[in-house]
């Protein structure tokens, strides 16, 4: 079909919108937009807190592991690689570090040392 002028064509583009789209536009627009604004500011704050907690926990864990490693390494080094023995350490630092490190009662350490070594109860209790 040939057209003489565009005036013969109805002034309708032929486009249509999905049913209810324009009627519900505000509802959908508000639903989509409102959470976005809350999300962006709210989530940023939440993520900042979460990130700082993660970083802080990571730092603490790293520090704790480093301390543990240090203790183990030092103990191993002193006992295996040097002439310094556990009794010399007791002499210098007392019994508390041993108790803390091995998590055994001081009484047990004293008993072991007096029975197995030349150290006397007087010496040990004076530490």
């Amino acid at each position, binding site marked *: 079909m040939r057209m003489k002028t*565009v005036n013969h064509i109805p002034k309708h*583009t*032929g*486009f249509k919108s999905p049913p209810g*789209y324009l009627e519900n*536009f505000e509802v959908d627009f508000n639903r989509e*937009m409102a959470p976005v604004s809350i999300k962006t500011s709210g989530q940023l704050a939440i993520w900042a807190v979460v990130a700082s907690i993660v970083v802080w926990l990571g730092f603490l864990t790293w520090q704790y592991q480093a301390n543990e490693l240090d203790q183990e390494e030092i103990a191993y080094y002193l006992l295996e690689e040097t002439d310094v023995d556990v009794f010399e350490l007791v002499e210098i630092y007392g019994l508390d570090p041993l108790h803390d490190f091995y998590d055994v009662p001081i009484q047990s350490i004293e008993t072991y040392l007096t029975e197995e070594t030349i150290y006397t109860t007087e010496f040990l209790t004076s530490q």
Partner: protein
Amino acid sequence: MTDQELLKQLSDPITRHSAFGLLVSLYKQRLYWHIRKIVIAHSDADDVLQNVFIKIYQNIEQFKGDSQLFTWMYKIATNESLSFLKSQSRRHFRTIDNLQSILVNNLKADVYFEGNDIQIKLQQAIARLPQKQKLIFNMRYFDEIKFKDMSEILGTSEGALKASYNIAMKKIEKYMTSN
């Protein structure tokens, strides 16, 4: 409610939200159809319309009232639609005109197009126009916007707009009768 009253409510933080809701309900249809004619596909028009209202909301305080509110919003909608087409054409390594022609040629398969063959042909004729003539033709032929208002939206003199519209009309007539 007049534009002035609406603007007054929009500038007040207490009434801003409800006034903006009113503005959306007043202008959504006109802006949607204006955008749709430029970007062609409904889903793209929906995205652009949402962006347009966000921009209107963000910039409403900068509107000085030296033009009509609707021409100011039309200007935002036009710019946003053209920016959208520009980004799409870059993404697909095409020109905007080329992209619009492809979109028009796919109209038959578009579930949100109910036009007949003549309407498809008219869209194809419009797609062949230079970008500014397209806008002028659509605004005048379908939306019946006055040349005075169009002049504010497009920043072109009324005389130049009238001349462009006549040229566009002749090109379309020629296409419609020769194809």
